[in-house]
């Protein structure tokens, strides 16, 4: 009898083995001890001449840490500014809200954020494509005089960033043209408030996304009106940003729970059809950046697979997801130039993995 039971239990454990074999950072990330030569990757990311200033590099494969390196003063416990990576995390947060039935892509933004009644045709899907059609100048330090984003963050718009954006004139019909705009992202952050019951907003990023993922380091700064600065001001440790990456890599599922609908992740990963391809520049999807090939056949990052996608921020912040390779890569940096090449880093990571066991 006991033997039968044992045999039964053994069979049962075999049957459920695949589910248990999947690695999740719960509570902490496990390490994959496979010896891999990271020299070429580190030589690129952490050059002795300081031409690139990588603060953190974290490479995860199928839920386990393969490689991790920090440059002082950043450490594994530093909640680092992500700049525009915030936008893609906001889109993932909105994915939870969409899964809860709080909105549809074709809903007018004005339904959730009344100041957008000045632009009643703009839909949430347009904002996620950075295609509101509102006049916008997205430049940081090189053209501060006419930069809409500088005005929004630091002068005229800082008390209420969404209101500042909604007051911009329409330059195009909505949904027709991609124009990268931090204002569009902050309209999304303000619209989220209108989707929730009174008092839910302050806790929502934690309740809906960060806590289920075991993220403890998040800081998300707000404007004077109390809206999250969805465009720019989320801070996370590299290990916690990688949790967002793993959620995306596994199509919105976190352990047994479908936290974000798989259809939403598919939307994030679908190129905006009306965006014109710019050589070497990742293509906009639903508030995430894609390595899809242009009609001419060239991928923005030629050495990375076409299904690679990313969240990207100012001064070299990046979260890359390579679903086929089951890779999640976080890079934090303080690059004050534009010499960093996504393709270079990804090429070297893939080459190091190709040499595995060699």
């Amino acid at each position, binding site marked *: 009898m006991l033997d039968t039971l044992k045999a039964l239990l053994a069979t049962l454990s075999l049957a459920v083995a695949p589910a248990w074999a999947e690695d999740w950072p719960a509570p902490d990330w496990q390490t994959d001890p496979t010896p891999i030569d990271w020299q070429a990757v580190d030589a690129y990311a952490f050059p002795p001449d300081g031409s690139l200033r990588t603060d953190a590099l974290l490479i995860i494969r199928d839920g386990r840490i393969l490689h991790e390196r920090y440059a002082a003063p950043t450490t594994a416990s530093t909640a680092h500014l992500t700049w525009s990576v915030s936008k893609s995390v906001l889109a993932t947060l909105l994915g939870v809200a969409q899964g809860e039935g709080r909105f549809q892509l074709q809903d007018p933004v004005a339904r959730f954020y009344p100041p957008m009644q000045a632009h009643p045709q703009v839909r949430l899907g347009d904002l996620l494509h950075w295609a509101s059609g509102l006049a916008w100048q997205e430049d940081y330090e090189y053209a501060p005089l006419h930069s809409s984003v*500088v005005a929004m963050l*630091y*002068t005229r718009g*800082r008390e209420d960033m969404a209101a500042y954006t909604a007051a911009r004139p329409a330059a195009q019909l909505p949904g027709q043209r991609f124009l990268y705009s931090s204002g569009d992202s902050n309209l999304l952050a303000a619209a989220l408030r209108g989707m929730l019951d009174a008092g839910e907003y302050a806790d929502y990023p934690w309740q809906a996304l960060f806590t289920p993922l075991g993220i403890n380091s998040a800081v998300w700064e707000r404007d004077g009106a109390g809206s999250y600065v969805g465009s720019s001001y989320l801070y996370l440790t590299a290990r916690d940003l990688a949790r967002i990456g793993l959620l995306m890599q596994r199509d919105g599922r976190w352990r047994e729970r479908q936290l974000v609908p798989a259809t939403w992740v598919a939307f994030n990963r679908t190129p905006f059809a009306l965006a014109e391809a710019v050589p070497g520049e990742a293509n906009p999807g639903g508030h995430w950046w894609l390595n899809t090939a242009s009609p001419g056949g060239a991928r923005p990052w030629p050495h990375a697979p076409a299904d690679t996608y990313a969240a990207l921020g100012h001064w070299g912040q990046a979260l890359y997801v390579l679903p086929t390779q089951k890779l999640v890569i976080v890079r934090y940096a303080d690059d004050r130039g534009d010499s960093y090449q996504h393709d270079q880093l990804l090429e070297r990571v893939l080459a190091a993995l190709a040499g595995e066991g060699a």
Partner: protein
Amino acid sequence: MRRVLLVLLALLGVSLGWSGWQARQALADFPGILSAYSAKEYCSCRFVMGFDPAYCRGYVKQWLPLGLLAENSAQRLVTAEGLGRRNQAAWQGARVGCRLLP
């Protein structure tokens, strides 16, 4: 010839006046950018990312010099002055970090 020149000058004056009128808001805002940027990003560097004062001074350094960059560590309040404008940012809480004060 002189008449052509006069017309050209008049045209130039009108176009400069027009763009100046358009740019007046941006020009009025411009001097405030440096101190606002420095106060906000220094505050977050210190009290959100948790780096030391020397690092954060370097982190916010721009090509235009600041007249003042001072922190009140007890209140987590940062004051910056530059180009004749003064801005303050303060830490608001563990989840919400820093914000520019009105």
